[in-house]
């Protein structure tokens, strides 16, 4: 049988009362404790919790004169009041929260909580001491000094001795003193690093002449700068590369070594491309660490469509090329795959140039006029003056423009062109020009010959206008039709269209680039558009030729 006190702390639905003191009707003051609710007498003189019994009225079975009462129908004992059955789904909200101490330790909180805290401290102390004694108490018996001196010397070593430290000063007196105690060379970091690199390269990195086919991206440089700075290092570990610099086998080995603790350590070049499969992807973001090294050639939309068509014939897909997009670098690897895949069609020996529009690929009949690749933009295009200058200079040497591949105005001035230019101008006191030197007013040693127009025109790649869908209207013209060269123009700044159109009749430029007027059946006509917003020139785009019906 539960006591009154127990009954009071047992849940009864809808009987919860507000917290605080209450004066009951019988004059007994009730107060609530933190846990549960119980009645405490406060009016007892001696403070004891003796329970007061209220005298109950006694029901007598006899009348006042002692006669035994008889039960009649009307005096039938009243049925006992049925206790209302508690609804199981009734929500009960207890208004008093127990104390935190009680919740943590229960009834035994007085000794249980201290016991737990002491246990944690003892366990921490034991584990800490075991490790300390094993690793740090006497870390290096050959060191001439205490554990404190040894570890302080580590800090000195890394501050002044480490080649990654901004305070690198291997022959600082403190570092020399510590190195002496440790029995090492004060310049230990550099020596060990060189040894390590040599070892890594001999074991891991097969350097193929420093041409990995990958370059640092801007996002990669930014990511690395952030990551290495968190480790108190700097990018000198990677020889302070810039965006576009070769990401070589040494870099890859260093990267893998540095990322072991983060779950990396086994990445390939491909893993570090944008959205690559590196274990460090969460740190790298979508920009990647490396990009494909520019080959000077990029995929064209026509090239991609051609490849998909050819692959579909063999139930293959573009995964072989890594699903490139228009404008992506057409890599050496791509060229290798192309040649391997086209051997059966009579190909297999193409160069990048063979895959350009009008190239001499054995697969020309499949490729069409658009080409598989285009020359990658370098940011510089040939000027008309540049072409004239070159023709004039070459004529002096009995050379011709075939050396440059007979470019047209607005065509990309490539790295190869620059190389040829420098080689050809050594005899004139040149030979060391950059592309910037060849723009109007540039610093070329041959400025005298170049003239005001410059050899090349710089085009801001991010601001240059573009044209697309260049075509001739009507698409099946008759000799009497008026031809129009149509195209879609786009300029990032929304500048007006200042593009120029050039016409070709049977493969030759027309006089003054005018629309060919005298046409005959069977003539082949095409046009090209050099996009321009009046400030920045873009790149020339050619139409498909039409045949006069």
């Amino acid at each position, binding site marked *: 049988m539960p006591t009154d006190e127990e009954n009071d702390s047992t849940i009864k639905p809808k009987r919860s009362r507000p917290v605080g003191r209450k004066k009951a009707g019988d004059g007994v003051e009730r107060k609530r404790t933190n846990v549960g609710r119980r009645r405490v007498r406060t009016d007892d003189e001696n403070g004891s919790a003796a329970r007061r019994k209220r005298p109950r009225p006694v029901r007598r079975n006899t009348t006042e004169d002692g006669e035994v009462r008889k039960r009649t129908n009307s005096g039938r004992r009243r049925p006992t009041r049925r206790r209302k059955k508690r609804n199981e789904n009734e929500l009960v909200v207890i208004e008093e929260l127990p104390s935190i101490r009680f919740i943590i330790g229960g009834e035994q909180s007085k000794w249980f909580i201290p016991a737990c805290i002491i246990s944690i401290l003892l366990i*921490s102390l034991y*584990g800490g001491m075991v490790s300390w004694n094993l690793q740090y108490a006497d870390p290096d018996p050959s060191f001439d000094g205490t554990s404190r001196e040894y570890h302080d010397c580590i800090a000195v070593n890394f501050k002044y001795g480490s080649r990654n430290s901004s305070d690198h000063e291997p022959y600082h007196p403190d570092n020399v003193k510590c190195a002496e105690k440790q029995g090492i060379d004060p310049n230990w970091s550099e020596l060990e690093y060189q040894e390590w690199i040599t070892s890594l390269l001999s074991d891991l990195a097969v350097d193929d002449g420093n041409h990995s086919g990958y370059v640092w991206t801007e996002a990669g440089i930014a990511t690395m700068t952030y990551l290495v700075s968190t480790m108190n290092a700097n990018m000198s570990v990677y020889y302070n590369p810039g965006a576009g610099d070769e990401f070589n086998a040494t870099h890859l080995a260093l990267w893998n070594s540095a990322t072991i603790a983060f779950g990396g*350590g086994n990445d390939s070049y491909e893993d570090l491309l944008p959205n690559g499969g590196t274990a460090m992807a969460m740190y790298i973001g979508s920009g990647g660490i490396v990009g494909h090294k520019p080959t000077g050639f990029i995929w064209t939309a026509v090239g991609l469509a051609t490849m998909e068509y050819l692959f579909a014939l063999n139930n293959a897909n573009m995964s072989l090329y890594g699903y490139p997009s228009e404008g992506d670098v057409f890599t050496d690897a791509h060229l290798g795959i192309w040649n391997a895949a086209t051997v059966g069609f009579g190909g297999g020996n193409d160069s990048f140039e063979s895959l350009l529009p009008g190239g001499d690929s054995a697969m020309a009949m499949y490729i069409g006029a658009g080409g598989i690749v285009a020359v990658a933009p370098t940011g510089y295009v040939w000027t008309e003056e540049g072409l004239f200058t070159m023709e004039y200079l070459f004529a002096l040497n009995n050379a011709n423009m075939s050396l440059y591949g007979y470019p047209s105005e607005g065509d990309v001035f490539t790295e190869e062109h620059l190389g040829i230019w420098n080689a050809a101008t050594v005899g004139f006191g040149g030979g060391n020009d950059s592309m910037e030197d060849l723009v109007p007013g540039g610093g070329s040693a041959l400025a005298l010959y170049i003239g005001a127009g410059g050899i090349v025109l710089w085009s801001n790649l991010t601001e240059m206008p573009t044209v697309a869908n260049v075509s001739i209207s009507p698409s099946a013209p008759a000799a009497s039709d008026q031809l129009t060269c149509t195209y879609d123009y786009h300029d990032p700044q929304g500048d007006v269209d200042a593009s120029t159109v050039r016409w070709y009749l049977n493969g030759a430029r027309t006089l003054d680039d005018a629309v060919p007027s005298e046409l005959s059946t069977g003539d082949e006509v095409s046009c090209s558009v050099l996009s321009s917003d009046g400030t920045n020139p873009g790149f020339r785009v050619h139409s498909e030729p039409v045949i006069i019906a």
Partner: protein
Amino acid sequence: MGIRLFLFLPDAESKDKKDMALRRSGFFALGAAVIFSDFMIFLVPGFFTGSAHTWWYMYFMNWSVVSHGFNGLVATHIITSFIMGIFSFMIIGLGLAGIYHLILTFRKKRSFGVPGIFAVYFLLMWVMILVRFITIELELTAFTTMTGAPTSEGDYSWYDNNGYLNQQIVTAEMESLSVVIYGLTSGFTDNLIYPCVALMHAVKFGLIRIQTDAEKKVFRVLALALLVAIAAVFTEILQELLQIIGFFNNDIIFAVICGLVLTTGWEKKLIDALEPEAETVNVSWKYPQNENLLFWVVNAIIGTAFFLQVFIGVFNPETYVALVLPFIILITAIIAANMLPRRLRNAN
């Protein structure tokens, strides 16, 4: 609180408010202990042996020996020791207290109940911990120090904070076994136990109401599936271990053993304990402060995190503006949704 519940379990039939508070807080504490038991618990045995793989702080504490010398090392070591001490106390205490509960259950002095489920869980975790620790120490596996993920095959060399060149060779066999053990342990904790605990709490505490017989049957089937999956994980681990030490093992024999174990009815105890009780569903405690504020704070914490994850996952914003703008739009929409009906009511 979890250890206290195992050791001083209140009478399951008691309706005393104090007992109910002890039970309820103990359940929540055990659930929280399960969720917070990340890979640090696998380092506990190494903490007592001084194993190098346990002492992971390296560059990643505020004070390092490289930057701050001896004092930095001592500060870092004390902090790490204390953190590991807490984890060790937790996992050891819960393991031993869980065994105590199971012993009393076995001796019919207690019912199995929710604490029984957690007791079994912590025993299973200890099996995992020991398997992982022993295989690391025997150089049969290799895990990265910072994430606990398997190390790929390769020859690794790096400088540690003491300036020493370290080298580790991870063989294909090591990687293979590491992947298996990591897959099983993370599969067990992340994919089996967490959903199981979440489900159990949701049902136990009335977030998911199970009332009809059909609902009860579905729940029991689901719980049974989870338990079978847990059993499958452990038989797989056992097989791997037997293979490592060269003992004979066979799938059919394991299937027979599992069948025999199932016929003992232990899974019924677990499933019974998972079912909701009137007490956990219907009895709650009043929040002593502003309930409205509590409601919004909790929803803001959970809702913001949820929205952020969904937004980043779907749209992958790359600028702060792109990240913040949707939140502004969302808040504006919420305010508009609250204001518009009122305005419309006023207009009418």
